[in-house]
């Protein structure tokens, strides 16, 4: 039963992390290139556009859920399982989510990169 709890926790952490990453990326895409905005409208304009974007607030909230889910999951399972499994699933989940929700062209090169990085992170954290 504890093993089931641990894996459910890992899935919640990975899901919330993917939601947070995608919403943050979407927010920054909507804001636009910050270098360009800063040059044309000043720093305050960049800060106000970033902070007023609702996707940023939802993204930060999702990341907070991911963080606290991680804390709970770490109390149920070993860190050597929870940390690498959650990080690897987040990398793979982000590739799917970026393709579907951000309409990024995730070609073979990017899939290979996602799988290699997910495997590498699992080995480093394991």
């Amino acid at each position: 039963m504890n093993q089931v709890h641990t894996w459910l926790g890992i899935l919640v952490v990975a899901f919330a992390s993917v939601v947070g990453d995608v919403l943050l990326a979407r927010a920054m895409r909507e804001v636009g290139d910050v270098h360009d905005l800063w040059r044309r409208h000043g720093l305050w304009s960049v800060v106000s556009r970033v902070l007023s974007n609702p996707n940023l607030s939802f993204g930060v909230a999702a990341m907070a859920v991911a963080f606290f889910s991680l804390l709970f999951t770490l109390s149920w399972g070993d860190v050597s399982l929870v940390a690498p499994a959650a990080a690897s699933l987040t990398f793979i989940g982000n590739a799917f989510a970026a393709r579907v929700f951000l309409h990024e062209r995730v070609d073979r090169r990017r899939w290979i990169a996602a799988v290699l990085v997910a495997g590498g992170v699992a080995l480093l954290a394991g």
Partner: protein
Amino acid sequence: MFAAAGDSMLSHGMKQTGNISLHHLQGVLLALLNPWVAVGIVLLLAFVVLNMNALSWADLTYVLPATSFGYVLIALIARFVLHEHVSPLRWFGIALISGGVGFVAGGPMLTSHPEQVVPVGAKPATLSSGLES
């Protein structure tokens, strides 16, 4: 680099501070006074800002593998600065991440079209001007 340096400084500072008990949470405030912890937090905040900056002109599937190179830097700092033991399996993990970063770095940074992520009620001129450059 900022994430790797920030994590390493936090780790070094927290080892100096010692264990923090849930029953004595004021230990967290004392930890913040440790210069290593304070500088580590500043560096991690800098990482968040730079990461958001990168996401404004590059794809998420480009930024995430590229920034994961920080894991490699952390392992190198742990081995050569903090003199921790890095197992052969972890060196293999470093090689995999480096390979992944190499794969994604050779491709385009931005593949999505700005109009595909425009929300209802947004200003298209602002969005397109930001992504054209």
